[in-house]
């Protein structure tokens, strides 16, 4: 409730007048000589209660009339009566993440959300300011403008294949509203409120800004989704090598049925299997020729189509040639033997090798012009000066300090290679740069905050990888784990130029290969790669092709994020935690229009006030005329009392 003329409310003090008159004030009473006092006494006695009741009724009527007149004059407005709202800054967070493509009944969830957005925009005024944030496309800037621009943005929104980070979207919305000049601000969260879309606890991401959110209470169906796909156990197959594809289904409590999955390679079905909720199945992948291979695994369509298919792409290449310098120890030797036995690598001389495993820096001086080096420090620190000299000779600007860190630290890092995940360092050297660090240097792994694996390239462009720990059991857990073979294979593959199979989800920022000039999206759209060398807007699941002119440089598969397939909705009790303290959850579409624009001016209701006041005045007149019933008759009598007997 508000008032267009609030100053008039001060006139409400007038209400006190009849009350004071009734309770305290007496007229300047005249005194009458009146012998028939006994009749008055009798009347007072017989009608005292009735008179008091009538006086009270008159008082209440007059007070009510005054209040109504004040209300009409102040032009009170009531939110419940509809009406306009003050100019409001609104951020519409439209969740177009993959799960919004879910079909319920005959409609997509996203279509319902867009219809709600339209309700918001239908109730908007020209003074309102809108931003539209597509939660499923976080790389897209918010679309700003009036209701018309927002409507166009909403209409153009399609379900992305990406993950929806609603917590981040809400923080972003609050930041946008922080820049708004309007006092009234709201966030309209239009989402299926998928639990995995929130970071819990949210710690009030909206900072107290009112949030109106859609809380659909429809039951979500069991989703038969493929959540993981692994080709060759994570290692890309080599030329002519047979391998297998392993896929995992989303676990669902209520779904015990099995369904069919098909393996499609280069447009042809190459195998099939069955899956049940939470299970894995493996389909053999025939040997492929040298070159890029792309394919996917698919299941029959269900209510959510986007996660019924998972893509892969790899380059079938020759096994990389690997040379060993120095005494590498039993762990490296065994891993090399395994990989060579499975034709993942080939042994060669140092000069021809694509990768040199340089124990204590041995062999660096004999490298070929394209030989990358994996430099492993010695177990004995007294050998370090010799290693440092070799590094200096090879123009690698790093040196090992004899300070040996001890303890147990898990390897971490933003670019931590998959084979190093879970590995721990027990002893490691301090690796320090010599002079200015080379611009191409990148820390791949850290142990307790110190570099453990450093990647770089020398002035000749030859790549190297420095490890801080010797590959022995007393220095790191890597050699005694199953990851050792994969680490060597990864190193060989990575440094041989083929690369491993990256695991990207839709929405990820794709780093472009150095030689690529364009990227071709799964839909066929081709975009030039900009100076950031990063591809954004990867909302389409599928295989992205990096090309340079007409030459294919690389293929990268992007798959729907597994979490998006979990359709479990956030419990309404967690809304305040996840969304904010000022959240208003609406579960009925017809209630949305009333819930938004919470600081409505409302409808002005001066006319019913006046009507009721007029009605009450009539009632008051009737009451008053009842008590003045004898006046007219008295008026016919000669004037008497005032002039007759008033005593001084």
């Amino acid at each position, binding site marked *: 409730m508000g008032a267009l003329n609030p100053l008039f409310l001060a006139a409400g003090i007038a209400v006190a007048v009849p009350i004071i008159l009734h309770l305290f004030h007496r007229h300047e009473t005249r005194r*009458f*000589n*009146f*012998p028939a*006092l006994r*009749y*008055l006494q009798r009347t007072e006695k017989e009608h005292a209660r009735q008179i008091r009741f009538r006086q009270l009724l008159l008082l209440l009527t007059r007070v009510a009339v005054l209040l109504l007149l004040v209300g009409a004059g102040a032009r009170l407005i009531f939110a419940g009566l509809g009406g306009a709202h003050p100019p409001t800054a609104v951020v519409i967070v439209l969740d177009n993440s993959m799960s919004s493509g879910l079909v319920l009944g005959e409609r997509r969830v996203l279509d319902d959300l867009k219809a709600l957005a339209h309700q918001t925009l239908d109730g908007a005024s020209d003074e309102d300011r809108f931003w539209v944030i597509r939660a499923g496309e976080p790389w897209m800037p918010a679309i700003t403008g009036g209701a018309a621009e927002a409507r166009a943005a909403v209409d153009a929104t399609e379900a992305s294949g990406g993950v929806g980070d609603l917590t981040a979207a809400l923080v972003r919305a609050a930041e946008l509203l922080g820049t708004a000049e309007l006092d009234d601000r709201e966030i309209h969260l239009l989402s299926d409120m998928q639990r995995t879309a929130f970071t819990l606890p949210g710690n009030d991401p909206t900072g107290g800004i009112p949030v109106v959110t859609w809380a659909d209470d429809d039951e979500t169906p069991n989703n038969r989704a493929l959540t993981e796909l692994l080709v060759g156990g994570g290692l890309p197959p080599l030329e002519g090598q047979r391998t297998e594809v392993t896929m995992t289904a989303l676990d669902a409590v209520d779904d015990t049925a099995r369904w069919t999955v098909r393996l499609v390679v280069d447009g042809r079905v190459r195998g099939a299997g069955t899956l049940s909720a939470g299970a894995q199945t493996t389909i053999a992948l025939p040997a492929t020729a040298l070159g890029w291979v792309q394919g996917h695994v698919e299941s029959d369509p269900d209510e959510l189509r986007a996660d019924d298919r998972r893509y892969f792409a790899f380059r079938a290449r020759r096994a990389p040639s690997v040379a060993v310098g120095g005494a590498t120890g039993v762990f490296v030797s065994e891993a090399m033997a395994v990989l060579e036995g499975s034709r993942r690598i080939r042994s060669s001389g140092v000069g021809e090798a694509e990768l040199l495993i340089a124990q204590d820096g041995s062999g660096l001086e004999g490298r070929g012009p394209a030989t990358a080096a994996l430099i492993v420090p010695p177990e004995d620190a007294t050998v370090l000066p010799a290693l440092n000299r070799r590094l200096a000779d090879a123009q690698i600007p790093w040196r090992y300090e004899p300070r040996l860190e001890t303890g147990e630290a898990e390897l971490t890092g933003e670019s931590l290679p998959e084979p190093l995940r879970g590995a721990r360092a027990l002893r490691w050297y301090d690796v320090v740069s010599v002079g200015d660090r080379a611009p191409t240097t990148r820390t791949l792994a850290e142990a307790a905050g110190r570099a453990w694996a450093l990647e770089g390239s020398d002035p000749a462009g030859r790549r190297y990888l420095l490890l801080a720990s010797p590959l022995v059991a007393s220095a790191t857990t890597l050699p005694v784990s199953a990851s050792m073979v994969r680490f060597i294979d990864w190193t060989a593959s990575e440094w041989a130029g083929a690369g491993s199979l990256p695991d990207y989800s839709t929405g990820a920022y794709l780093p472009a290969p150095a030689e690529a000039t364009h990227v071709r999206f799964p839909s066929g759209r081709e975009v030039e790669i900009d100076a950031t060398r990063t591809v954004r807007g990867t909302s389409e699941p599928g295989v992205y092709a990096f090309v340079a002119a007409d030459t294919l440089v690389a293929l990268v598969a992007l798959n729907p994020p597994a979490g998006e397939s979990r359709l479990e909705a956030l419990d309404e009790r967690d809304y305040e935690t996840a969304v904010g303290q000022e959240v208003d959850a609406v579960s009925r579409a017809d209630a949305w229009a009333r819930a938004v624009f919470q600081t409505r001016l409302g409808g002005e209701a001066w006319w019913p006030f006046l009507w009721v006041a007029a009605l009450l005045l009539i009632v008051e007149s009737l009451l008053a005329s009842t008590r003045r019933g*004898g006046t007219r008759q008295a008026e016919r009598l000669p004037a008497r009392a005032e002039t*007759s007997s008033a005593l001084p």
Partner: protein
Amino acid sequence: MEFIAREVVEGFLMGLHRSPHRGFSAEFAELRAYQAGDDLRYIDWRMYGRSDRYYVKQFEEETNLRSYLLLDVSESMGWSSSPGTLPSKLWYAKHLAASLALVLLRQGDSVGMAAFHNRIVDRVNARGGRRQWHELVRRLEPLEAQGGTVAEGALRELAVRLRRRGLVVLLSDLLVAREETLTALKFLRHHGHEVLVFHLLDPGERELPQASEARFFDPETDEELLVSVADIRAEYREAVRGALSEWQRDLRPHSIDYEVVDTDRPMSLSLKAYLHKRERLG
């Protein structure tokens, strides 16, 4: 007063009447059979000679009706709601009494008067003749409103003193102790008097004055009452009407005539009430 009373009375002497009481006076009325105890002087000896039976002669009683005018001169009687235009109740009562006396005397009745408030303040014995009226007027004129009204004592005292039956006319505003006054009137009636009550009422007593709130006080008792006049006006009117009805209701069963006399009403109308009463008496 004499002039006004004469003016009022002229139109109302509607014919003389005879005493309803038969006695032994000069004018023969009839004969009746002798009964033991009859006065032997009234035996009609001629009839005895003719019929050999004793008859006694009866005559029309020529004695006049004895009337007593009882005038309330208490403080409340001196009140007028509009002194400039309306007479006080006492003024009206005195002139009404004078008029009644003139009517009665012209009919040959004897008229007496008593003025009272808490006690009898003046009294004139009942006599006939023109000089009696002048005496009454002379005694009425100086009466002034004063004192309270305890009518019962005065009325009882009068009842004792009025040995011969007659007509008792009470002129009062009846702002008196109600039950006691009723008892006294019934006492008069019990002693064989015909009783006529003129209830004098100022129009200002029927209607409250124009004021939203006022303080009223009783000149006799000095009691005060603060009243919201507007709130109580209609109820007050009903209360007055109810009080008058109660007087009427309580007096009628005892054959006591009751007449409300508004002081803004022509006095002749009040005399009509008297005549009506007188006609019923025969």
